[in-house]
């Protein structure tokens, strides 16, 4: 073209501008939608972790590749399939994700040298804990202690369709606040912004349908305990309601040089005797959470019969309140390398919640026996509610 010869810089700048425009247009055109199909109230799926309901059968799932996680058989990746419907009051999600091994025990305690310790990943046989993979990320999903599988759903208001506004990496992202406990960073948003986060946990899922409902906002003020590192500073992450936490830690301590912990409760049905373990009993069952009311206060006298190798659950489930209309509930099961999860949440927003409506953005994160390291994907699914 003549202009290329007479005005090469102009030609270059115009072409560069066109390329920029094309990239932005392509990005918008390729934005992925999650159609939330409308169904009658009576056709709503049963929340049981089984997607054989008729309503799910006619819906093609949207697939998202999530990456950068820990383990997942050494790949660090998990492919997530999601389908969505809504009735007059609730959003229902059917989510299937890859996870080679189910991990249902969270922070189990093991007795060793007459002291209790947090069991490290894979050390409690039969706990459904991770069998380390063989790839480069194998066995590094938080190393120790043993943690359950989790799955998080993030709901954000319409905006730039890219992850990261609430992710701040580094040892100390905030100048006047402690860094994250993992040293990897903090989650918080800017002023006036809020993000809804629902986290399902395999440890409590068997005993309670309740999903941990939390939200992300601007950085919370630092408490005295947090400033001296006696408590974990969570940036802008807050539970919707303190009572919404159904999993309660069954120990104190653990941060000393020897890593010993003090159990708080003891199962009414005593843990498997060592002799029974040797005879082939499954000590992993002892690692899984118990209902709070099936335990009693821990005393040395009560624990006198427990010897080295005995296992106690690290989490107890205290959920004697029926979930309210704004609570997120779910049921799941694992089979053949996949977790299947059915989630329900009200379309309307409760306290510290965002409403489910057109244009809202949704991301997914899978945790493979890891507390903080999870997979993620960059571009959200944008909700489109069927009428």
């Amino acid at each position, binding site marked *: 073209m003549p202009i*290329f*010869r*007479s005005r*090469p*810089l102009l*030609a*270059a*700048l115009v*072409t*560069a*501008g066109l*390329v*920029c425009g094309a*990239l*932005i247009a392509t990005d918008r055109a*390729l934005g992925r939608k999650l159609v939330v199909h409308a169904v009658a109230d009576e056709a709503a799926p049963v929340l049981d972790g089984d997607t054989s309901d008729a309503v799910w059968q006619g819906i093609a799932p949207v697939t*998202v*590749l999530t*990456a*950068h996680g*820990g383990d997942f058989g050494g*790949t*660090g*990746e998990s492919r997530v399939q999601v389908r969505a419907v809504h009735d007059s009051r609730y959003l229902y999600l059917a989510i299937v994700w890859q996870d080679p091994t189910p991990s249902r025990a969270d922070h189990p305690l093991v007795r060793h040298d007459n002291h209790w310790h947090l069991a490290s990943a894979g050390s409690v046989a039969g706990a459904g804990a991770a069998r380390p993979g063989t790839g*480069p*990320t194998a066995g*590094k*999903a938080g190393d120790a202690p043993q943690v359950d599988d989790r799955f998080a759903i993030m709901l954000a208001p319409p905006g*730039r369709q*890219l*992850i*990261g*506004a609430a*992710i*701040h*990496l*580094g*040892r100390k*992202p905030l100048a006047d606040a402690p860094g994250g406990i993992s*040293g*990897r*960073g903090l989650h918080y948003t800017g002023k006036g912004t809020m993000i809804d986060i629902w986290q399902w946990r395999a440890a409590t899922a068997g005993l309670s349908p309740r999903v941990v409902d939390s939200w992300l906002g601007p950085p919370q003020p630092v408490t005295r305990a947090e400033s001296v590192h006696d408590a974990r500073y969570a940036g802008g992450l807050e539970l919707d309601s303190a009572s919404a936490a159904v999993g309660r830690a069954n120990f104190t301590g653990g941060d000393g040089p020897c890593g010993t912990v003090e159990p708080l409760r003891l199962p009414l049905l005593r843990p498997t005797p060592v002799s029974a373990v040797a005879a082939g009993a499954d000590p992993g069952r002892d690692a899984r959470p118990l209902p709070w009311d099936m335990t009693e206060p821990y005393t040395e006298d009560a624990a006198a019969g427990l010897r080295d190798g005995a296992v106690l659950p690290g989490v107890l489930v205290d959920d004697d309140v029926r979930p309210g209309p704004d609570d997120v509930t779910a049921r799941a099961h694992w089979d053949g390398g996949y977790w299947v999860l059915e989630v329900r949440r009200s379309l309307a927003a409760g306290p510290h919640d965002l409403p489910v409506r057109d244009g809202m953005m949704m991301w997914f994160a899978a945790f493979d026996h890891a507390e903080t*390291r999870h997979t993620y*994907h*960059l*571009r959200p699914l944008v909700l489109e509610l069927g009428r």
Partner: protein
Amino acid sequence: MNARPWPRTDIGTVLLHWSVAGATVVLLLTGLRITSDDVGHEWLRALDGVLMSNDLWTRHILAAQVLTAAAVGYAIYLPASRLTGRIHVDRLRLKGLFGTSQTRWSCLNALICWGFLIAASGLIVTGWLAYVGAPEPVLDLHLWCTWAVVAFVPLHLYALLRLGGFRHLARMFRPRRLAAQEGDLDLAVVVSELLAEREAARGVQGHGHSQGQGQGQARPSAASAAARGTERKR
């Protein structure tokens, strides 16, 4: 006292060069931070004080758009302004590797630039593929391209220093207008002019020196035309 003026280079090259450099710096400061969070790359956290922490993906993608646009712009600008000679590599230039220091470093710099162009192209392609959800191996390739780009910077600077010292580097801070366009060299014209010059030289030998000077002033010689072409390719 050195009265030589500091060299300049065309404003297009300066603009595109600093666009690429700026975008690359932002891409490195955000991309390496993102990578430092991945299993197996924790050692990058040693750069904690240098790497960016906030709005990582937004900045990374914006810088990627700038780099992509600048790369395409450069691909248009270089041939349109007939500056491809800067990175042109042929047998003659490769022979320069065994020539003087000047020809050796000129050739090495061109090869280094090609290395950068390949790495940057790989970076751009794998980066956009990763953005739309390509699996882990693409990201691994993206990281290898990153290391190649990081390695390019000191190599390029060293080659330029060996080629022309700090004065050579200073070009990038001293833009000037692109020299007026000249017509393409026509090989037939060059040959005919060379023949005419030879004839003229014979005439000078036979008829005196002043006539040859007059001819040279009235009409640019093929040799000077060739020199112009060489200059445009530098």
